[in-house]
């Protein structure tokens, strides 16, 4: 288990992170420059925190309580670290790269061979890094880090430079290796899809501060703040004021429009931030009767943009609110291509839509 509780003054902000990682995959997620890489540097020993402690399976790697400092140097931390640009040794073959971290030269060859097979790199032992594809280089870097049999594996943007099938097969391999070797894995990403791909838990970091840590699904479904909602790509983030609150539900005044939401312990007059997922913005067929789920929160908007991706379509709807009559609010609706076609819409058309009442989610105040 990795335990991190550190503080470090950086140029623009103070990095302050506290988290633990069991035999699982933790995703360190946040925009560029949020302090993700610096956190890694502190864990591996490439940078020194101002104070705090870092422990791995009970072993103190760093501890500074303001009076005494205890610090294990980089080369004695025994942490598997896969650098963002792979950092393979260009003057060594694949086999030499793999066995670099092995002190006992006698079984280095055999173990390198086994690792090559495990990572589907058979036949590449005598190649040099510049003769490999990006995906192969990434696998060698991963294998090299695993050869020292670390308890902790750190991956810095491991999938950023890879695409499609290469990315997916590597993700599957990392997931398998994590289970087989019972590894603690932490990886950095700023890409939503990569965060979902193989993480168990998510730590959202912004400007050096941990915003939320929890199981991935939970963080995505229940962001605890506007910041986390924005970073995790939540659409249709809206602001309003509670105009009445009862056991039946909440009534929110949203810039002059009335929105009904599920019951919540909020007081009348309280400002609220809420969102509705694009899946819950339902475009209405003019000639069909309304299903009960979409009878509330009906509005009219104008189609401003349509983006098709595979079998799904994202429709952007512009609508005026009294608080911003000129600058239109834009909502996103996400629906199957088939349903979109049936509506017979095009850009500029006017359309009725409903914000599903149960889909209105309030952020914690």
């Amino acid at each position, binding site marked *: 288990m990795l335990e991190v509780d550190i503080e470090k003054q950086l140029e623009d902000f103070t990095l302050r992170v506290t988290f633990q990682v069991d035999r699982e995959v933790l995703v360190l997620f946040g925009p560029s420059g949020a302090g993700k890489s610096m956190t890694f540097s502190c864990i*591996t020993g*490439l940078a020194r925190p101002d104070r705090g402690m870092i422990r791995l399976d009970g072993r103190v790697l760093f501890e500074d309580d303001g009076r005494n400092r205890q610090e294990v140097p*980089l*080369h004695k931390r025994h942490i598997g670290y896969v*650098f963002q*640009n792979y*950092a393979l040794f260009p*003057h060594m073959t694949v086999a030499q790269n793999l066995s*670099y971290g092995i002190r006992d030269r006698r079984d280095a060859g055999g173990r390198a061979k086994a690792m090559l097979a495990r990572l589907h790199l058979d036949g590449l032992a005598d190649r040099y890094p510049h003769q490999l594809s990006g995906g192969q280089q990434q696998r060698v870097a991963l294998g090299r*880090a695993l050869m020292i049999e670390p308890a902790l594996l750190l991956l810095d943007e491991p999938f950023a430079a890879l695409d499609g099938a290469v990315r997916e097969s590597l993700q599957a391999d990392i997931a398998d290796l994590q289970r087989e070797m019972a590894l603690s894995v932490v990886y950095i990403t700023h890409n939503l899809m990569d965060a979902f791909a193989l993480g168990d838990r998510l730590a959202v970091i912004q400007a050096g501060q941990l915003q939320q840590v929890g199981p991935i699904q939970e963080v995505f479904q229940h962001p605890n703040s506007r910041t986390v909602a924005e970073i995790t790509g939540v659409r249709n983030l809206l602001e309003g004021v509670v105009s009445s609150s009862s056991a039946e539900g909440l009534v929110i005044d949203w810039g002059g429009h009335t929105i009904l939401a599920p019951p919540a312990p909020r007081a009348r007059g309280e400002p609220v931030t809420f969102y509705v997922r694009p899946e819950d913005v339902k475009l209405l067929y003019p000639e069909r009767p309304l299903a009960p789920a979409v009878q509330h929160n009906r509005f009219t908007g104008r189609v401003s943009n349509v983006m098709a991706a595979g079998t799904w379509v994202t429709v952007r709807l512009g609508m005026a609110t009294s608080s911003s009559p000129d600058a239109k609010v834009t909502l996103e609706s996400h629906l199957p291509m088939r349903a979109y076609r049936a509506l017979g819409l095009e850009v500029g058309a006017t359309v009725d839509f409903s914000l599903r009442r149960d889909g209105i989610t309030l952020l914690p105040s």
Partner: protein
Amino acid sequence: MIWDALLLSLRVASLATLLVTVVGLLIALWLARSDFRGRSLVETLVSLPMVLPPSVVGYYLLRFLGRGGPLNIFGTQIVFTWLAAVIASAVVALPLMFHSSRAAIAAVDPTLEKAAGSLGSPPWKVVWDVTLPLARRGILAGMVLAFARGLGEFGATLMVAGNIPGRTQTLPLAIYDLVQANRIPEANATVVLMTAVAFGSLLAVNRLERRARSREKRYA
């Protein structure tokens, strides 16, 4: 006379190169990876022999290494022996070795050194396994330049080692004597020989540097 001088020159230049390689690399490693106050002072000091008149360098060496000089630690006679010629060549060749190898070391991607460290190598092993092999062409170029410069050293050597035929007379000094004695055919032959060595060295350095550049491109 010429063969004695040639052999002595080769011996002096080789030993000086060895000395300069060790000292130059240590200083280059130290300066390439650290940033401290007074760094440029050290750099300037190491580079000084490049611009000082050789006679001035020779005079300093005479003072430092001579009887009672601060560097004459063992109290033995160094001045006016062939060892003094080695030291003179080394001091004059050091800036070339230092500049070439420091540039090559600075060009090594620090991430590779960090990676080696994270795989369990202590700093000295990182230098040995990663930094030096990747900087080897620049280091080799520095050695060739240092050797060529040492071979051609005249002024400082004359000051501190003298011009004793068969003992401290190196090839450049021998050429001077040949011309003084009006032995023009021998002087011609020696001059051509020295020019060939210098030309060959520079050609080799040029090739090394070009290959280092194309290798960088390939790795990038």
